[in-house]
């Protein structure tokens, strides 16, 4: 197959993908971002009425996870390129985008927002409580290595494999990877909480049995959260009670 896009254009599209969410709106979400990113490539592939039609179809509703979108748009770009070269494709670019945005968003949310970000943060917090300024760097590294890997490799694989990227991603069972990351995070969080409680208790010279009480507090907070209290609200009530008991006792 003859490639119509130069390497420079493809790299420009990838760089522009970094600004995907810059004009996020409630009605069509990242649509304008998609046009902005694919724009340079579309202008090379089509002209006249074809170009107008291409720009219009990439201004449709689009909402995916910012780190998973490069894979989708890489594939969409390759599909457009095939069409411009006169070839045929199993799915059209617009259809492909429509079917992939929600499942890819689900995987990205679970993996990055639900799994890797809290895991990286939890690890960094150990450094923070040792008063080490490595904490922010540890967080940035742990988070951004998978982030960059997914965007760069995802974009490249999407562009090379077109719609076959779907089978590839489906095989990787990303939601299960996310569950593993979350499990690890919960274990680290448990250790961190117990460490903080113990440091505090030894500082105040209280009995270690107080640790049990703090455990009770964690589950009570969780129960109230399920009943609809927000984290902020729970914190402020807790703070009020702490200060009040400080005055009374």
């Amino acid at each position: 197959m003859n490639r119509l896009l130069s390497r420079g254009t493809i790299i420009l599209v990838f760089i522009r993908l970094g600004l995907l969410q810059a004009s996020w709106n409630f009605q069509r979400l990242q649509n304008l971002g998609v046009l902005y990113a694919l724009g340079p490539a579309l202008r090379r592939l089509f002209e006249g009425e074809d170009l107008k039609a291409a720009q219009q179809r990439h201004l449709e509703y689009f909402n995916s996870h910012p780190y998973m979108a490069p894979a989708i748009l890489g594939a969409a770009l390759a599909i457009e390129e095939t069409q411009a070269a006169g070839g045929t494709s199993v799915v059209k670019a617009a259809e492909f985008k429509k079917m992939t945005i929600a499942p890819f968003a689900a995987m990205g949310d679970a993996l990055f927002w639900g799994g890797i970000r809290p895991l990286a943060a939890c690890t960094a917090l150990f450094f923070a409580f040792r008063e080490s300024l490595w904490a922010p760097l540890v967080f940035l590294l742990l988070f951004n290595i998978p982030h960059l890997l997914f965007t760069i490799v995802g974009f490249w694989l999407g562009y090379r494999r077109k719609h076959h990227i779907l089978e590839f991603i489906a095989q990787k069972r990303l939601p299960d990877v996310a569950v593993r990351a979350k499990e690890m995070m919960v274990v680290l969080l448990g250790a961190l909480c117990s460490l903080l409680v113990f440091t505090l208790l030894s500082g105040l010279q209280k009995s270690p049995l107080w640790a049990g009480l703090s455990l009770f507090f964690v589950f009570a907070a969780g129960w109230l959260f399920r009943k609809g209290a927000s984290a902020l609200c729970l914190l402020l009530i807790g703070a009020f009670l702490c200060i009040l008991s400080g005055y009374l006792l």
Partner: protein
Amino acid sequence: MSIVLVRVDSRLIHGQVLEAWVPHTSARCIVVMSDDLMSSPMEKMIMEASVPSSIKVFIGGVTEMVSRFKSGEFDKLRTLVLFANSQDVLSAYRDGFIFNKLNLGNMHAGSGKVPCSCTIYLDPTDIENLNELVAGGVEVGSRCVPTDTQRSYKKMIPKGGV
């Protein structure tokens, strides 16, 4: 039957459902009823792959899934039911799929659709469909994620109608 949530969401399975509603309702099973989805096996495949293996997921046409519900297949599972639009909900309801609460999550904008909240866009047909459900005793409300406050359907419709 143990249906924990019935939701209308144009995006069907996505982050809000998996990360917020599934843990909130402790659902172990997701049922997607959509006729449109049946024509695209690729879409069905990738949608199934976006759910962790600890949660069962069933995707099928409205009539098919309603009859599976009636046969008692999902009785023992805490089930979350998803629809893509109000038309599918109504046809399931008419087929005898019984539920008493309906959650409106995301209903996308389109031609003739009027914004009723940040994420809900309705047209006159939607309103007719939902009114029929309300008349049948279904409590309709809108909430994107469990931490949002519930908004009742009646209060969402603009004063002058749609």
